[in-house]
């Protein structure tokens, strides 16, 4: 049996200097270095660099670790911060309850740990509440406008078509562009699409480009009297907002999902609601 061919490349020499080779590879490199003095000298210098760097910072490992870097202590501080936050929220709840407008004010209270999805749902619900009550200016650009979807697609930097919900009795009214958010819950700009049925009930879709993690997430949440059906995947995030019965929203959600997510292998996952 012959040993597999082993080519000594620059990367292999680095790996040799860093002690990342298996024994037989090491032997091959040593044979190579024995006959290549130039390479041998450079590798020796790399090893000297490694030695020097390791020696230079080795004393840090021997130092006593300061108290403030004890994980138990850090955890206690984090816990205290959380308690303070909770207490702060609790205190404001009391005030707000007294003012009788709890739902409204709680919109602004954000838990520092909350995922971007929560911010997206918040924004979708807020935008829904703001625009569905408009009679004449419910949408910024009417459905009949040519290139509406091309414009929105380019602005949210993700190709989307307006899903057809006519099977559910809903007509596409048009859409508008809404700003993204920066900071901890950063997301790109959103396209809001509005639909209406014969009884003037309205549904909005709040669509953004996929989040960086491209993870599949599903949520169904009730926020201040409307339901929000949210999902995220590798293509988009979409939040469907409406005050229709939950079952209708879930049906709409299935239809929207199938039309927005073109990948043939993507699966509808109605059971999991996050």
């Amino acid at each position, binding site marked *: 049996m012959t040993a597999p061919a082993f080519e000594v490349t*620059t*990367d292999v020499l680095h790996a040799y200097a860093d002690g990342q080779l298996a024994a037989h590879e090491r032997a091959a490199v040593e044979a190579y270095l024995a006959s290549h003095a130039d390479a041998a*000298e450079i590798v020796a*210098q790399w090893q000297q*660099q*490694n030695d020097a760097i390791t020696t*230079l910072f080795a004393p840090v490992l021997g130092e006593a670790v300061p108290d403030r870097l004890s994980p138990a202590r850090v955890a206690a*501080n984090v816990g205290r911060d959380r308690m303070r936050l909770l207490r702060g929220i609790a205190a404001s709840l009391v005030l707000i309850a007294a003012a009788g407008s709890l739902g409204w004010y709680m919109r602004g209270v954000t838990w520092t740990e909350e995922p971007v999805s929560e911010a997206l749902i918040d924004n979708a619900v807020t935008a829904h509440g703001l625009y569905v009550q408009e009679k004449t200016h419910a949408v910024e650009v009417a459905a009949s406008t040519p290139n509406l979807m091309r414009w929105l697609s380019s602005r949210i930097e993700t190709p989307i078509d307006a899903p057809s919900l006519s099977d559910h009795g809903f007509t596409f009214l048009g859409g508008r562009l809404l700003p993204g958010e920066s900071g901890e819950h950063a997301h790109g700009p959103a396209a809001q699409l509005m639909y209406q049925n014969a009884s003037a009930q309205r549904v909005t879709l709040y669509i953004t480009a996929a989040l960086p993690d491209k993870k599949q997430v599903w949520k169904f949440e009730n926020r201040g009297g409307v339901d929000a059906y949210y999902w995220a995947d590798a293509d988009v995030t979409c939040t469907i907002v409406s005050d229709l019965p939950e079952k209708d929203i879930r049906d709409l959600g299935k239809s929207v999902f199938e039309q927005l997510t073109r990948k043939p292998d993507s699966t509808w996952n109605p059971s999991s609601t996050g």
Partner: protein
Amino acid sequence: MQQFLDEIEACVPALRRYARALTRNADRADDLVQDCLERAIRKQALWKPTGPLKAWLFRILLNLYRNELRVARRRGEHVAVETLLVEPSVAPAQPGRMALAEIARAIETLAAEQREALLLVVLEGMSYSDAADVLGIPMGTLMSRLGRARAALRVATGAAEAPRLRTVK
């Protein structure tokens, strides 16, 4: 929770050493580590027990360090080059060894991205694939940063008059 904290604690000395090597300043380094621990503990739920905890912690530390650099640059602040922790009290070394003061100065001349990569591999002894993962770069990029870092160190320590690596692919 206790086990999680214990595992973090085991990584603290290595985190401190890496932070010290990055910042060359003991206080700033420990501030970074403290921020890193806080963030890790806050985000504990996000850590999946599948990946190694150490790599996750180093990734958090690096992100904090990079943010700090970015903010400092945006503010136009000058991040002072502090006195080195190990001042050249060490004798200008024996033949075949590199003077520590010399290497310390040479490290400072490296581009930040080269320094991050080199120190992960050399100080932490991380495998190339782990290091690439922590740095969020492809393996090829890691190797070229490593190569450039080492070449720059050779120049900075005056070793570069010696032969160049041209016979090797």
